[in-house]
């Protein structure tokens, strides 16, 4: 995959703020897209590039906090709030809902750049976790039914003999299944496999117990 430049979305109804931030962030090396309203931003197609959202709280139709609610499921798009008149309840609400930072205008450029860097790192991490999970799920999907059963019991700490007893197969067969599981899941060690199972479990419980 080619290295993708992170993208910073700026939503602010004030032209001075939009224009100055666009230039600052571009000069800092990011791609920048600006919008004067939340609605305009929502109309923009989703990307899988790492990035973040610099969001003004008071906006004409849909305000910043309301937009944050709509973006609840988008972990890969951290939000840095900027506001012309922040109050404590407003910032608490924003931070509780997962905002990276809450800056009051006029803010220091470094404070914003640091916040954006942090947000983009978070975005990159979220995206790579997503990719990792996707790959893990693909590998898990390639396991046979018997292999999944063996894996579930092994990572639960059962000995090969106990697994064989539980599934009504010989210990040798258990060993063979276990080797294939390790290979298909690309697990370097048994500990690795236990971690993978833990990662899969929250979203894949239904599938592992089938």
């Amino acid at each position, binding site marked *: 995959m080619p290295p993708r430049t992170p993208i910073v979305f700026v939503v602010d109804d*004030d032209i*001075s*703020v939009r*224009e*100055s*931030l666009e*230039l*600052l962030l571009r*000069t*800092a090396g990011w791609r920048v897209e600006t919008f004067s309203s939340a609605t305009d931003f929502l109309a923009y197609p989703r990307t899988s590039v790492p990035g973040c959202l610099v969001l003004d709280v*008071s*906006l*004409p139709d849909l305000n910043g906090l309301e937009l944050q609610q709509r973006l609840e499921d988008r972990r890969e798009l951290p939000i840095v709030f*900027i506001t*012309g*008149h922040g109050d404590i309840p407003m910032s608490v609400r924003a931070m509780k809902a997962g905002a990276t930072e809450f800056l*009051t*205008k*006029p*803010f*220091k*450029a*470094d404070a*914003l750049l640091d916040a954006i860097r942090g947000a983009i790192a978070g975005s990159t991490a979220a995206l790579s976790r997503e990719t990792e999970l996707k790959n893990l799920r693909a590998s898990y999907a390639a396991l046979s039914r018997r292999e999944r059963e063996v894996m579930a019991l092994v990572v639960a700490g059962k000995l090969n003999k106990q697994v064989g007893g539980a599934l009504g197969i010989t210990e040798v067969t258990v060993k063979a299944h276990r080797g294939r599981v390790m290979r298909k899941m690309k697990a370097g060690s048994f500990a690795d496999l236990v971690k993978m199972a833990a990662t899969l479990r929250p979203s894949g419980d239904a599938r592992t117990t089938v």
Partner: protein
Amino acid sequence: MTAVLQGQSPTRENLLALLAAEKRFLEMVTAGKSMAEILAALCQLVESTGDGCYCSVVLVDPSGTRLEHGAAPSLPASFISSIIGRPVNVDSGPCAMAATLKEQVIAPDLASETRWTEYAWCPMALAHGLQSCWSTPILTSAGKVLGAFALYYDQPRAPTALHQNLIEQFTHIASIAIERAQNDTALRRSEAFLAEAQRLSSTGSFSWNMATDRFMWSAEAYRIYEIDPAVPVTLDLIATRVHPDNLANLRDVMDRARREGGDFDYESRLLMPDGTVKYLHVVAHSAHGQDGERELIGTIQDVTERRRSEEAVGKLRAELAHVARVTSLGALTASIAHEVNQPLAGIIANASTCLLMLGADPPNIDGARETARRTIRDGNRAADVITRLRALFSNRDTTIESVDLNEAAREVIALLLGELQRNQVIVRPEFADDLPPVAADRVQVQQVILNLLRNASEAMSNVDDHPREMVIRTAPDEGDRVRLTVEDAGVGFDQRAGDKIFEMFYTTKSGGMGIGLSVSRSIIERHHGRLWGTPNDGPGATFAFSIPRTFRSPAATFERYQRPIESRSDQP
């Protein structure tokens, strides 16, 4: 005189004596002797004829209903006092009857008299030893009853022709004396009234004979000018008191009075020797005097106190308006911070970018230059916001200038944008394209607009079932006026509250002080305009004001002297 009534026919001597007596009385009248003195002398003269008569004069009081004491030098006080105060009618007694009927009443023998029984007048007279009474009304030349002249005897008696002749003569003299005295009293009373009225109302009167340049001043005029009433008034003397700034106006008025006459109504000022200033309201009218010469007659009213209290009220109003502005300033803090912080955020970001560009290798000079330009633009924008705020919230005197209501309203909307956005209010301006400017105090008018917009916004803060929409309209209004209307879709107000909503400290808002609308109305009224509110047919209310395009300051009335109320030259 002693022989007058003793002879049966008048002799030459009698007639001469009579003439001399009449002459003496007329001299007393013209010499200004008091009425009581003259009437008493008259009675004494008649009594001195020696035929045993007693005389009295009773007067009819100003209301014409009761008898008053005139003169009765020889009759007992108990007799007179029982007559005085009796009603003027035919039953009270002979004098009251004569005055009522305007006819002579002769009672030759009181012992057999049957009239006036209701008041038991005859027994009372008989008790005082009087046996007969002849009463004759005293009439003015116009026929008005002044009183009655009576002769009493201590024996039954009827008048002879000579008696009648004398009675006629004396009632005539009495009538002149009484009428003159009453006129004098009326004149003195009227003069006293006038002087008192002038003193109470601080109004002096004057006349100016244009041909001779002679001035006449009333006592109050002297007092207002603080000049000794013994000093004759001259134009030079007046000029020493008129405020130097008003001298030219005084000359204008005098020139115009000489040239075309007419009526004058103007204000002027005096500068007293001790440096105090007096404000005068002068109303004058040019006329032809008794000798046919042109005269300017008028009044001078000292309106200094009124003017001072007007100034004090004006100052209080201005202070209250300032309090109201500062109160709204507090409420607007968040909005203002927003307005200023936007460009500041831009400035800091631009300056940071500029540094990044200059620090790059190689430095991005063009980019840095452009960024610096943007920094300046945003800086100016912040400065504009501050200038607008300072203009709106400073405490300054009324300044009348040409104001574009569209522009004024736009600035207020810009200032309130943050707050309106936070309240999710949609502002729809519907401004008339070619709106004529108004002569007004920009800050005060903007304060009114600010008040109306904030009220409208707050009225919609709990509205969720329809859009929070506010329409601001400007339009030319009838009568050379311009109107601004603010229509909201909020809670509206109860029509029954009526004009109460414009009263000081009346509020329907939990956090309101109740001064916004009242201050707004007083501002608009000072612009000679009108501010009103009506509930909408649908949700919400509409508030509007209408102000004339030209401003007439209440203090600038001096110019009025040019405007004759009624000028002879205007007449066909």
